[in-house]
């Protein structure tokens, strides 16, 4: 099954570049901002847009993304509206992959099949549910694959070889390597430890490996880009959104920041 995620990673590999995956929470700080922010990130060089589906109890997230979820929920964001945003994004951007990232319960409440077909129809390419390990993923996986989307899984420093194998059974698109033991936006990754693990995971899963959690600066992104297939940035973007006076200012700040990451990542690959 060839979707936008697979084509994008194939193109990046042939260019010898590492991908930039950007995460923002849908509806943060209000529903009208998100579309502009998604396009701004793409203009800045994002290869994959991860759209956070806000949840009332984001257990795996640090304070920055917690606040984004709270703002989004206060503004009335929900899964249905997130899908409408994806649909609106697709009207002007048919090529950038969109991954929905969040927690299982909103999807469970909507119903797996209803969700998967609505998400695919809206133009989403992948689904990442933070609190759904492969052991519990079978039913959702069936629905997501039937709809032609990828299911993306996390791997962590604590993941054993057996767990990597379990993830491999269900994972498509790419694997999201959580580079630190912790919540989003808190600790920073140790580049050397990350790099050796990434090559091991690439070999074991046969999928592109993106690295996230703790990538906050252009320098860190460049270091991670050296051996990983993608660099995933989230909390740093949410902080930019938090500090923006209005949507146009936020959009240009996001674009500039993404562009800075993109340049640093391409430079380090070119130099290597």
């Amino acid at each position, binding site marked *: 099954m060839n979707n936008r995620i697979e084509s994008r990673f194939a193109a990046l590999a042939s260019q010898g570049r590492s991908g930039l995956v950007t995460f923002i929470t849908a509806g943060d700080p209000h529903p009208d901002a998100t579309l502009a922010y998604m396009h701004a990130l793409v203009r800045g060089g994002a290869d994959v847009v991860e759209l956070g589906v806000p*949840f*009332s*109890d*984001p*257990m*795996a*997230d*640090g304070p920055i993304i*917690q606040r984004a979820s*709270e703002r989004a*929920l206060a503004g009335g964001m*929900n*899964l*249905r509206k997130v899908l409408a945003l994806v649909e609106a994004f697709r009207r002007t951007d048919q090529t950038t992959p969109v991954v929905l990232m969040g*927690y*299982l*319960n*909103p*999807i*469970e*409440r*909507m119903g797996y099949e209803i969700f998967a077909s609505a998400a695919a129809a809206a133009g989403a390419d992948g689904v990442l549910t*933070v*609190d*759904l*390990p492969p*052991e*519990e993923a079978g039913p959702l996986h069936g629905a997501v694959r039937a709809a032609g989307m990828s299911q993306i*899984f*996390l*791997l*962590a*420093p*604590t*993941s*054993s070889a057996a*767990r990597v194998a379990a*993830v491999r059974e269900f994972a498509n698109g790419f694997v999201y390597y*959580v580079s630190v*033991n*912790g*919540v989003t936006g*808190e*600790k920073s990754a140790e580049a050397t430890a990350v790099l050796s693990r990434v090559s091991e995971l690439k070999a074991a899963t046969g999928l592109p490996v993106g690295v996230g959690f703790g990538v906050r600066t252009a320098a860190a992104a460049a270091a991670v880009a050296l051996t990983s297939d993608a660099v995933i940035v989230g909390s740093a973007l949410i902080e930019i959104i938090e500090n923006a006076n209005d949507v146009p200012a936020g959009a240009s700040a996001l674009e500039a920041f993404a562009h800075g990451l993109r340049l640093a990542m391409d430079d380090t690959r070119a130099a290597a």
Partner: protein
Amino acid sequence: MHLNASSEIPVEGVLPLTSLPDEHGHFGPYGGKFVAETLMAPLAELEAAYRECMADPEFIREFERDLAEFVGRPSPLYHAERWSRELGGAQIYLKREDLNHTGAHKINNTIGQALVARRMGKRRIIAETGAGQHGVATATIAARFGMSCRVYMGAHDIQRQSYNVFRMKLLGAEVMPVQSGSKTLKDALNEALRDWVSNVDDTFYIIGTVAGPHPYPAMVRDFQSVIGRETREQCLSKLGRLPDSVVACVGGGSNAMGIFYPFLADESVKLIGVEAGGDGVETGRHSAPLSAGVPGVLHGNRTYLMQDEDGQIIETHSISAGLDYPGVGPEHAWLKDTGRASYVAVTDDEALKGFHTLTRMEGIIPALETSHALAYVAKLAPTLPKDHIIVVNLSGRGDKDIPTVAAREGMTL
């Protein structure tokens, strides 16, 4: 003691309930392990350590010794004669968990988990707490074992349970106020999970109820099932027969699971869980997911949840901080669906009435959590014959709630 004693007698022709959960932590469609990848390895490590402990006679001896000498077990089964007579129906017996060291059933589980933690070489303990009873029980055992201890507690609960907050601090625990969400028990659980994921190497998370990801629901139940085993033996030796009904309050559901579990195979024994109805289940302002919730996934397991149509967890309401939780242990969800246990709700006002009644009738001041079970018994007992035996799990004492009750009644202390 037979912690793993699972007499695998099929109940209601469905499944041998006492053999659950299955190897993946499922109770029918409920339970499981719904956590981020980083926690999967520590959960597997915990499960292995827990199984090893339960198979080790030395661990069991240590646990039993602590229950006897540190907690003061067995707790008495007390015939509430005056109250039974006043109600004019069934005979009411109280399983006196309020007499345990630290004043509630919570200590049974914290001792068990702290012993597992010590075996695993973990030196740092974290816990979440609602009313503060589990926090106090955890701080107590951490003090005794010389472990460092941090307790997460919702800022709202800190306000209404200041007495327990000070107790925890006296015991050397650090109490971390949680400002996110509704600032109650569910948010404390989120924060404790975030701490654990950030400190998996040296930290043991002592969950206080039969919820969370597998193996917690089974492990907490097993440590708490000493309540039901004692009750069963006491009924047989003192009354010559099993009780007809067993009643317990249900928030997360650890005291209820602890007393229900050894009776699951005794089909004649009716099991009734009493949820917190807050202002009334019909108002939507309550904490009664089994009575009015929908299945979903929160805090590592699938269970009945208080949630809106978008799958967001909604704020709960209860006079009792210990029941103010939007979920419930997954085994209760399964017992509800199979019909082996039934669940009802009583309101804040009814619970308060139960609080006063037991205090005046029997000279026992119950916790507000427990008062929910008592309030239901006050309705149930008069409808039953005089030879009907009801056991109520008197899960905790009410000292901690005196400021809440006083404030509710317009008194300043």
